[in-house]
């Protein structure tokens, strides 16, 4: 099957669900979410049969001009699978979160206003999938905007909740600003190289007489991309928006949006990092961004008392580690995985850990009506199995050995060691140590603090299965990471 069917199917699924939701007079809306999840699983299955034009050059579709805009390599397939899996879990999370969603939309006592919340992530997913295949900056920009515009809506979705509205306005204003930087930077890159196609940019780099305008443009594009991946200097929005947005949206933002930002960063920087002309200044820029992001994310996370806000800072911290892997640039060779694969692997483990934590957080939010660390008190006594799962997930986020998080962090450190980035290594070490402190703070609250007659949580079946699957995946990938590597092949 030609690869471009995947996006077309995702968008079609979204449109069909929107129509069905509008014309169906049924009271509940959770069936929209279940239908979306089933459809996503089907598309995910088709991903493994999708092929590019190289695999079947004789087919009629292989010579279509569409392939001027669209590529399908192993990296594109990996990030398509990533987008589909993230969206699947986010929609499942939204189904269990619908009581809170319904409370803050149209009619508080019915689910009438929640239908679109299940359909919109599909469009964002299609945007992320197109982004992974983009061959030129125009296509990448349009796909990225599709993702961002969908997020503007999803963040402000609970419009009767002041926090969600405030988050929506903040995200909109800062998002528009970062888009401005991105477009301005792309204009400079286009002006300096005369093309927006990434492959042609790589070709014209050796002939450049003056790289100053190009570097100026790259700096602006990086500011725009830092907004999407949540890195310094555009990290200010993250805590407020993550805290205010509905929890499924927060999970989607912290995993899906970040991965979309990173695939674009990788695709955009790859030609510049491969060329001697521009590599030096860009690596310096990446190292500065990585160190600042690591320090900001980890040190500001220490005093947090709200768990959702803590996860926001943790997401900044992980962006720092990922940037450090790029700053220690190493192309892929026969004996070692390059920076790109390490970043992708790290993101995959980050998906498993973060989505698992958000499933638990959503249930605590619904059943204990709070998101602070105190609301996790006594979870070890009332729900030992759930507390154990959350302990595993948090330990993985901190980077404890035998979990998936450790392998990701270990590979980032070994890349940085190979590249002799001593300032980066020192900062990353301090950050990892700070990470242990604030993640274990939550674990301590669960096991060592007593709750005063807080009810024990009753997990709905979907959440139970998802938390179980994600926790086991974190443990399995910690010992046997081959499944993720085979996806990257």
């Amino acid at each position, binding site marked *: 099957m030609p690869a471009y069917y995947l996006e077309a199917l995702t*968008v079609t699924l979204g449109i069909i669900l929107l129509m069905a939701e509008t014309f169906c007079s049924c009271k509940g809306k959770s069936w929209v979410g279940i239908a979306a999840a089933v459809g996503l699983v089907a598309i995910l299955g088709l991903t493994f049969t999708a092929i590019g034009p190289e695999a079947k050059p004789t087919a009629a579709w292989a010579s279509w001009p569409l392939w001027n805009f669209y590529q399908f390599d192993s990296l594109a397939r990996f990030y398509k699978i990533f987008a589909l899996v993230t969206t699947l879990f986010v929609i499942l999370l939204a189904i269990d979160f619908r009581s809170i969603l319904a409370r803050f939309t*149209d009619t508080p006592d019915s689910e009438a206003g929640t239908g679109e919340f299940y359909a919109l992530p599909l469009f964002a997913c299609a945007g992320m999938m197109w982004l992974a295949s983009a061959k030129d900056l125009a*296509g990448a920009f349009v796909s990225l905007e599709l993702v961002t515009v969908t997020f503007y809506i999803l963040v402000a979705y609970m419009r009767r909740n002041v926090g969600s509205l405030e988050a929506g306005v903040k995200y909109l204003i800062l998002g528009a600003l970062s888009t401005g930087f991105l477009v301005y930077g792309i204009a400079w890159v286009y002006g300096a190289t005369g093309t927006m196609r990434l492959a042609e940019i790589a070709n014209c780099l050796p002939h450049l007489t003056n790289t*100053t305008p190009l570097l100026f443009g790259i700096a602006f594009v990086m500011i725009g991309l830092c907004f999407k991946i949540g890195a310094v200097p555009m990290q200010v929005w993250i805590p407020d928006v993550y805290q205010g947005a509905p929890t499924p949206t927060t999970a989607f933002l912290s995993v899906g949006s970040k991965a979309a930002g990173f695939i674009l960063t990788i695709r955009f920087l790859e030609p510049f990092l491969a060329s001697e002309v521009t590599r030096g200044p860009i690596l310096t820029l990446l190292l500065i961004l990585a160190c600042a992001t690591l320090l900001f994310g980890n040190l500001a996370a220490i005093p947090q008392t709200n768990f959702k806000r803590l996860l926001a800072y943790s997401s900044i911290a992980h962006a720092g580690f990922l940037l450090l892997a790029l700053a220690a640039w190493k192309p892929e060779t026969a004996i070692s995985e390059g920076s790109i694969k390490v970043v992708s692997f790290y993101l995959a483990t980050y998906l498993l850990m973060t989505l698992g934590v958000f499933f638990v957080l959503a249930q605590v939010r619904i059943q204990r009506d709070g998101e602070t660390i105190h609301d996790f008190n006594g979870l070890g006594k009332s729900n030992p199995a759930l507390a154990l799962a959350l302990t595993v997930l948090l330990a993985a986020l901190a980077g404890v050995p035998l979990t998936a998080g450790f392998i990701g962090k270990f590979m980032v450190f070994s890349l940085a060691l190979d590249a002799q980035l001593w300032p980066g290594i020192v900062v990353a070490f301090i950050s990892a140590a700070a990470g242990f402190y604030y993640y274990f703070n939550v674990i301590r609250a669960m096991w060592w603090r007593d709750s005063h007659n807080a009810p024990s949580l009753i997990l709905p079946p979907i959440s139970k299965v998802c938390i179980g699957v994600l926790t086991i995946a974190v443990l399995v990938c910690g010992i046997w990471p081959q499944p993720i590597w085979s996806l990257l092949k």
Partner: protein
Amino acid sequence: MPSYLFWLFSVIMLAGGAAVIAFRNPVASALSVVACFVGLAGLFIGLSAFFVGVIQILVYTGAVMVLFLFIIMLLDLKDEEKSAKPLVPIAAGIGLVAAFTMQLIGVLSRSPDTTAPALDAQTFTVAAAGFPASSKIATNLLSGKLPDVHLIGRTLFTQYNLPLQILGVLLLVATIGVVVLSKRQAD
């Protein structure tokens, strides 16, 4: 374009942009945006991008800004109240703008100046060679006219075909978003 026209339109644009922030009355701010867009349209036309210049006036100034004015009047927005101005953010803002301007000047002073090719018969003939001989674009170019609507359309539908289709999905999502976020409670 003659350089005095360039300076005239640039000054109109910059003054309009500054006035948007300076005015406290939202209607005055919206009208300043109109002035800014008119200057921008003038610059586009001066650069021989006639279609983009006209669209700038028709769509942005004519439609979008008039809608803005309608909304401002319907919501009956009052003048923005004067707030205390903390020194630190203003100083940081000025610092950032200064750093940006310095960098821009530095980059521009290091790049060699190049002039755009003049729109004369020779340029047209060279450009027409890139299109089929009997096509509308080629005949127009050879007779000394600039078929910029056709050229833009052709570029959009050939060189940016997939991005254009993705934009369609984006517009759909934006429409749904507006409905979802502003839907009134049904009784």
